[in-house]
């Protein structure tokens, strides 16, 4: 059974894109798609659609075979939690420290406030060089630190799907290589992934199959 299936999905254009004409696509464990689009906004819209962040104007969204009702907001939350969305617009909460941002999901779901960062989160913070900045707010750190914190948050939330957009923009070169390694491990473990590089040099890093969006027409190859 497909983990995510978009059936006859269509969406109006956003920004400078052409929108998404009616298409169907499914993501199953082991899939790794490289996304190619003639317009960045269409690629962005496609990833947001997969992340349930854009309700379909036509068509249906199935998660593990179950159709999602976008009018029932609360029922979408458990699905969103299972999707690691590393889009260019993935953000941190501005009025909380990086540490709280990394812990807030656990604060909420475990209903405890005396939690510490787990070992894997701490080691990733060391790896990305943000360990000493954990008690600062996003406005007090560099853009690449924010991006690093978003990556750590999404990588460690136990997601079942990864959606990655222009992954290497903003990140320093030495971090990029570690990040590539991390994504490779994710894909090797069979977690489905859709990846939009934006830069041709990274276009073919992880792909097993391709998704093309040309003039709003989505084609899976």
């Amino acid at each position, binding site marked *: 059974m497909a983990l995510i299936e978009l059936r006859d999905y269509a969406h109006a254009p956003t920004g400078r894109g052409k929108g998404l004409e009616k298409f169907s696509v499914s993501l199953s464990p082991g899939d790794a798609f490289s996304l190619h689009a003639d317009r960045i906004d269409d690629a962005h819209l496609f990833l947001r659609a997969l992340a349930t962040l854009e309700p379909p104007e036509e068509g249906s969204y199935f998660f593990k075979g179950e159709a999602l009702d976008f009018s029932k907001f609360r029922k979408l939350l*458990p699905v969103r*939690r299972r999707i690691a969305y590393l889009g260019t*617009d993935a*953000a941190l*909460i501005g009025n909380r420290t990086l540490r709280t941002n990394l812990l*807030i999901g656990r604060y*909420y*779901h475990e209903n405890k406030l005396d939690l510490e960062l787990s070992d894997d989160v701490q080691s990733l913070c060391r790896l990305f060089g943000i360990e000493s900045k954990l008690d600062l707010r996003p406005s007090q750190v560099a853009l690449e630190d924010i991006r690093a914190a978003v990556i750590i948050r999404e990588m460690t*939330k136990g997601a079942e799907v990864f959606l990655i957009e222009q992954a290497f923009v903003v990140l320093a070169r030495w971090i990029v290589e570690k990040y590539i390694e991390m994504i490779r491990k994710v894909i090797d473990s069979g977690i489905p992934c859709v990846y939009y590089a934006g830069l041709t040099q990274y276009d073919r890093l992880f792909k097993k199959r391709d998704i093309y969006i040309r003039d709003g027409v989505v084609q899976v190859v």
Partner: protein
Amino acid sequence: MRDFVGYLGRQTGVRLNRYADQSAFLYRILRQIVVNPKAGRRLRIRIVVEQIYFTAVEALWIVIPISLLLGSMMILQLSGVAAQHDMGRVTVALLIREFGPLITALIVVLRSATAVTIETGYMKVLHEIEAMELQGINPLDILFVPRMIGLTVSMFCLITIFCITAVLGGYAIAWSLTTLPLQNFLSQIGKAITGLDIAVVALKALFFGVGITVISLHYGLAVQKGITEVPVATSRGAVACLFYCLAVNFILFAAFFL
């Protein structure tokens, strides 16, 4: 003429739509308060405490001087024009029942409602609310419910502090600065104030707190495209809050004292 009628119709439609949206939003917040889900309960309590700190505690240095100035001025004026035996009733009617809640609401709108609209608008534009949702967090739980509880509790506290400071502090200032006859002032207040006065002031605090929160959050969430929309939403939200408070004040006055 037809254009004018059309314009009027469109404006009415827009406003009715907005009120319907705000009512639905209020319903969802109140429902979430009643349900009080276990997930995020401690986090919610912490954010409520933070909100009370920002709205009530940090506003004390504004509320107390204003209440002292207004209270002493009013008592001095009233002692000059009102007959001594009416002073208690006039003070209760004007200071405790009308000006206390209204001026406190105005201070909360200026300080906190605008801040809530700005914060919510920025969170919407910068996808911070989406970031919460991607963690499986319901924004109602940790963003909207704590704002409503915090602002309403703060409103109760600030109105109480305003009224007490205005009457006692105003009396003390008037007594120490002048030789005006202010005998039995406090006992007159004590006799003039009734349970209905206290209930109406409490109702005002409740309606002001709930209404200001819903309006300011709703205007913040209405921001769609860019950061430049935030100042416009903030200004409109503050004006809407002000009109709402004046309307509620009049409705409660008409309902209980006319």
